[in-house]
């Protein structure tokens, strides 16, 4: 019964929060409207999203978000340095294949997004069976190091969150 009214509780909370952010003012009326949206939208979209990801540890999400935020700041500085102070022929761009242990599409999406936002890497393509991801490095002389860093820093955390 509860599962029917709230097919996806976290999505409901998120939608309500986004609604309150959009109207930019917390009043009882806005909260009510946000709550109605937060209940109706997940019910309407549930049939289109049958194999929903389960968030195992919500606290880990916050930790992950903080780490990624910090890495984005570092990434910005690193990429800026490469752009400003390296000559074009000294920039060694490479393709790196990162084999994936994650299986849920939601987790892989988050990982691909994270890779694009962080130090000198852009995720470009998945293997057709989703078993590995193709990453383009702006500048690296150590492709194994990049791969291990992605796996140890992001992937195992996502594995804990989504399983």
């Amino acid at each position, binding site marked *: 019964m509860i599962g029917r009214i709230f097919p996806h509780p976290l999505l409901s909370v998120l939608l309500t929060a986004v609604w309150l952010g959009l109207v930019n003012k917390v009043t009882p009326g806005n909260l009510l409207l946000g709550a109605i949206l937060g209940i109706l939208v997940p019910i309407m979209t549930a049939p289109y999203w049958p194999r929903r990801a389960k968030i195992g540890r919500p606290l880990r999400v916050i930790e992950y978000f903080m780490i990624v935020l910090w890495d984005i700041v570092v990434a910005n500085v690193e*990429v800026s340095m490469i752009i400003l102070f390296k000559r*074009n022929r000294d920039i060694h761009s490479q393709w*790196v294949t990162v084999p994936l242990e994650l299986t849920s599409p939601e987790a892989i999406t988050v990982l691909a997004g994270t890779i*694009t*936002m962080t130090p000198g890497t852009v995720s*470009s393509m998945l293997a057709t069976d989703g078993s590995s991801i193709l990453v383009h490095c702006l500048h690296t002389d150590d492709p194994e190091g990049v791969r291990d860093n992605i796996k140890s820093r992001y992937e195992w955390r996502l594995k804990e969150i989504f399983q």
Partner: protein
Amino acid sequence: MEFVSELLISFFLVVAGIFGLVGSFGMIKLRDTMKRLHAPTKATTLGVGGVLIASMLYFLLVKGGLSFHELLITLFLFLTAPITANFIAKTYLQANLRPSDLPGTESEYGWSVYQDPPKRSDEE
């Protein structure tokens, strides 16, 4: 107090401006599409982020009220920037590169742009 808050806001605006400029400069300097992709997806994130932090500080310290719009802009930016980059990368791969130009996948299937997916066993 007013001086300190103005200093803080200007600091973030200047930092944002510098990173935005470097990101745009990267688009000119770097020589091929995949390298160019790195400039707007990263250097610009901190550029936009700095403006948003400055805007939040402005509303908090000068106008005396909280503003949530900036947090939403950050959220939407994080959702859209990687997807756009991924689309551009895939289009580039499709048009300009062959599978032999890329490293292998470490499984029996190839990359998704060049090969159809295998049938899923759990498909209803």
